[in-house]
């Protein structure tokens, strides 16, 4: 990893802290970037214990957001003390002593892991997820576990068994989902960075709704070991943070080959900050015309088009591309993801751990009732859909056909990348919606993922970068996508935009 001084961006005017001017009267510390926090720790201006204590107090003060599911000062401070000891012993590291919070999909020792489900209430994992362990090894201090949709199934965080999460920009709006707790926590600066997972848009949609930066790497780059499985062929760990630069720093510790995950990709370790100062001149950004079709709200389109103009001004070439079958992404996704989920969730049967029904007739009845009482409505819906599409006589028509169309969609991305280096478009068709607005209509809810699902099916890296605000002051995100394993340049492309805009440094009032 490069020394800290080399990571300050030459393209940002002055120090990045000053460049992205802030509203007066808000706390400086909470608004510091990961890079700045690392530098402060290195200069001994603050200790990891002080930093952790500070964030724990903020989390406590903003409990009403319901972003966190489990906060425990004791293990957090123990980790902070360990980080301070490491630094005192001469160890250096951009992340050493910097706080992080984990989506409750990642199993952790020291905190309960529930996947926001009743069926895992009070569950303690005997091991850490690889992602958690990797960040911990880099010295990051865990602040606790973040709320999300139950088993990461949802686009609004309304499916958590432990209550909704409020959007810090507008308490009446959803923060997005499934990583709603991660997005809200970072938006409200209750954590400088948070882990998240993206199966069909669960990082990018909440990033867009909550006005934070979200990054989903290539499928296979982050280990899935210790990530409670929803749809194994799609589940990808990633980050919600303030900036692309912060994501790049944390990716350096978080991504890499893991022999415990057979779908993990065995490639050499990379420095994800190496392209932050990428020269955009001559690069081509493809704009899929299908992403601007009917249904896209004008305010979102306007913000995204404005961002594209910024890129054009930076010297990129904007090219028109087509992903003709991307609209099939939603049905394909709900067949494939539900099928895998129906099988992945079979282990929650009340036999070995987790919730067990109090009254039952026999073994089978115990399993049946435990699942009926332990799972929420959306989880049951997807298990039913998944069970149906895998059933004898339906498999070919649904699962097999969906797998074929998935391949077609992935191939279309490859064709598009022959014409451009990156893709850009909206993340969602509108800004964050209000509680209950879509929860009665599952299909409307599923369509929230229209633009994010195709990239998940293709397994390519993608980001959501704040690019403006829409009605009621709710944030809008710019969707950036790259080809497999091109996340370092993707982060650079996002960073260059963040060097000339300040959407990402804005903090909701009161935080």
């Amino acid at each position, binding site marked *: 990893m490069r020394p800290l001084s080399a990571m300050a961006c030459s393209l940002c005017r002055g120090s990045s802290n000053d460049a992205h001017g802030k509203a007066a009267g808000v706390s400086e510390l909470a608004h510091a970037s990961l890079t700045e926090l690392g530098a402060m720790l290195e200069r001994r201006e603050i200790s990891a214990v002080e930093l952790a204590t500070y964030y724990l107090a903020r989390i406590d003060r903003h409990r009403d957001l319901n972003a966190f599911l489990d906060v425990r000062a004791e293990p957090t401070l123990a980790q902070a003390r360990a980080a301070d000891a490491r630094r005192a012993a001469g160890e250096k590291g951009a992340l050493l002593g910097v706080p992080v919070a984990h989506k409750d999909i990642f199993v952790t020792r020291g905190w309960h892991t529930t996947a926001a489900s009743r069926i895992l209430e009070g569950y303690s994992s005997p091991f850490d997820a690889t992602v958690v362990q990797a960040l911990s090894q880099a010295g990051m201090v865990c602040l606790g576990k973040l709320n999300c949709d139950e088993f990461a199934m949802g686009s609004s965080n309304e499916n958590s068994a432990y209550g909704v999460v409020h959007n810090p920009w507008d308490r009446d709006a959803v923060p997005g989902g499934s990583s709603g707790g991660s997005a809200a926590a970072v938006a409200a600066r209750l954590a400088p960075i948070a882990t998240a997972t993206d199966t069909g848009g669960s990082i990018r949609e909440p990033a867009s709704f909550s006005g934070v930066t979200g990054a989903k790497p290539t499928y296979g780059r982050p280990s899935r070991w210790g990530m409670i499985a929803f749809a194994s062929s799609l589940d990808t760990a990633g980050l919600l943070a303030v900036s692309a630069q912060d994501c790049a720093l944390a990716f350096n510790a978080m991504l890499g080959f893991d022999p415990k995950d057979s779908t993990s990709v065995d490639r050499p370790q990379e420095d994800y900050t190496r392209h932050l100062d990428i020269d955009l001149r001559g690069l081509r950004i493809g704009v899929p015309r299908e992403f601007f079709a009917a249904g896209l709200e004008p305010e979102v389109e306007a913000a995204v088009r404005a961002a594209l103009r910024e890129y054009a001004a930076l010297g990129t070439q904007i090219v028109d591309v087509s992903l003709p079958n991307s609209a099939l992404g939603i049905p394909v996704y709900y067949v494939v993801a539900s099928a895998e989920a129906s*099988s992945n969730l*079979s282990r929650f049967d009340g036999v070995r751990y987790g919730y067990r029904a109090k009254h039952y007739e026999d073994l089978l009845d115990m399993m049946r009732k435990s699942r009926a009482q332990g799972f929420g409505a959306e989880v049951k819906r997807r298990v039913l859909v998944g069970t149906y599409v895998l059933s004898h006589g339906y498999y070919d028509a649904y699962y097999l056909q969906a797998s074929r169309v998935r391949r077609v969609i992935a191939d279309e991305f490859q064709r598009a990348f022959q014409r451009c280096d990156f893709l850009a478009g909206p993340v969602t068709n509108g800004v964050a919606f209000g509680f209950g607005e879509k929860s009665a209509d599952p299909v409307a809810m599923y369509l929230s993922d229209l633009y994010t699902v195709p990239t998940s099916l293709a397994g390519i890296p993608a980001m959501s970068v704040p690019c403006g605000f829409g009605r009621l002051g709710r944030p809008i995100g710019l969707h950036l996508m790259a080809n497999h394993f091109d996340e370092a340049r993707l982060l650079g492309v996002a960073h260059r935009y963040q060097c000339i805009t300040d959407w990402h440094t804005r903090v909701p009032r009161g935080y």
Partner: protein
Amino acid sequence: MPSAWETVIGIETHVQLRTASKIFSGASTAFGAAANTQASVIDLALPGVLPVLNAGAVECAIRFGIAVDATIAQRSVFARKNYFYPDLPKGYQISQYEIPIVQGGALSFPVAPRSGEPYIKSVRLTRAHLEEDAGKSLHEDYQGMSGIDLNRAGTPLLEIVSEPEMRSSAEAVAYARSLHALVVWLGVCDGNMQEGSFRCDANVSVRPAGAQAFGTRVEIKNLNSFRFLQQAIEHEARRQIELIEDGGHVVQETRLYDPERDQTRSMRSKEDAADYRYFPDPDLLPLDVSPQWIERVRAQLPELPGAMRERLVQEYGLPAQDAAALTASRGLAQYFEQVAQAVSDKKAAANWIMGEVCAQLNADDMDVEHCPVPAPELAALIARVADGTVNLKTAKELFALLWKREATSVDSVIEARGLKQITDSAAIERVVDEVLAANAAVVAEYRAGKEKAFQSLVGQAMKATRGKANPQQLNETLRRKLRR
């Protein structure tokens, strides 16, 4: 009465592979540990765990595939077989479904029917695929509750499926025995049937002799010995024939064999069969087996029993039956070769091993690997019989001493106990003369035509030499003297 019905049998065998660790986790596969002490977080299916394929299990499958001359799939796929059961922690079993690693192949083996001549039968194999074993439910030990032991969960299995090409219980048992011998021979299975390392299910149907179409088949489970396999097939074929002859028809179903009552009872019918909702396991990439890997395994493969049978016939001039018996296990065959190479009479080596050695091994329930008579000593014993140092009777006594470890060296015990055969004709004549003189009455009986009296005189003379006289010489001398 010749039966007008033909029985058709296909066999599915679950072979537990002899890997140190499980097929998708690092937990030990050793049998008999305290319940749930050999179940890792993966075997327990805790949230967040993922399977990683054990290459050792794949190698076992390749070994087997080469041995039965099957096609080893360059790419095979693990699927999930979904069903709920308390001892199935994930709620699905990882098993190869559409594309198994071993495809086709055949097994040839000798069949010795109860009546008629022995013959060689060849049965084609459909496939052999890798999968994981489930845990065990213990219903007996807990009042009103079930215990779950997940030590077995994740133990690698090779499920070997034969074509329905066997036509009698004798063929089915011969197939199962031969398959058992082969997987043990290859070192891919410990062969322990009591511990469930080798488990057979039989698909049985009947049809009028000469008919082409198959009858409705019934799958019989729980056949954990060759005897049960035979009994269950015979019982089931009888049941089906009686059913049809009484105007009924066979229902496709799974039946459980109850050895205590020697009957099968229905477990579930085809209609009740679960929909397993197979689909490729997204946690595991397709399994690629390179031609180089296959060649590497082939190079390490021991000589196979079929090839060895032929070689024993060629090289040692043994009858085919002997070669088949001696290749029942790799250990026995190796033992034979060690003995045979040290003696000139190869047939004698075969006879000793198939006779005395196997009888003692069976009596003591022992593997040839633990045989107390080392091959060089048995060879020495055979050599001493051949060169006339001891007679066969003494040799067998000597063998018993070696078996009981009361002697370690054939030659030194012959020396020490003075067991050397008496071939000195003067000495034998002397003994014979003494016996004739002392048994005048018996001699008279013999001369009166009582042949039995001769044997009595032989016995007396043998006794006088403490069994060491060369029997042939003794007989001749006695006849000669009595003729006078």
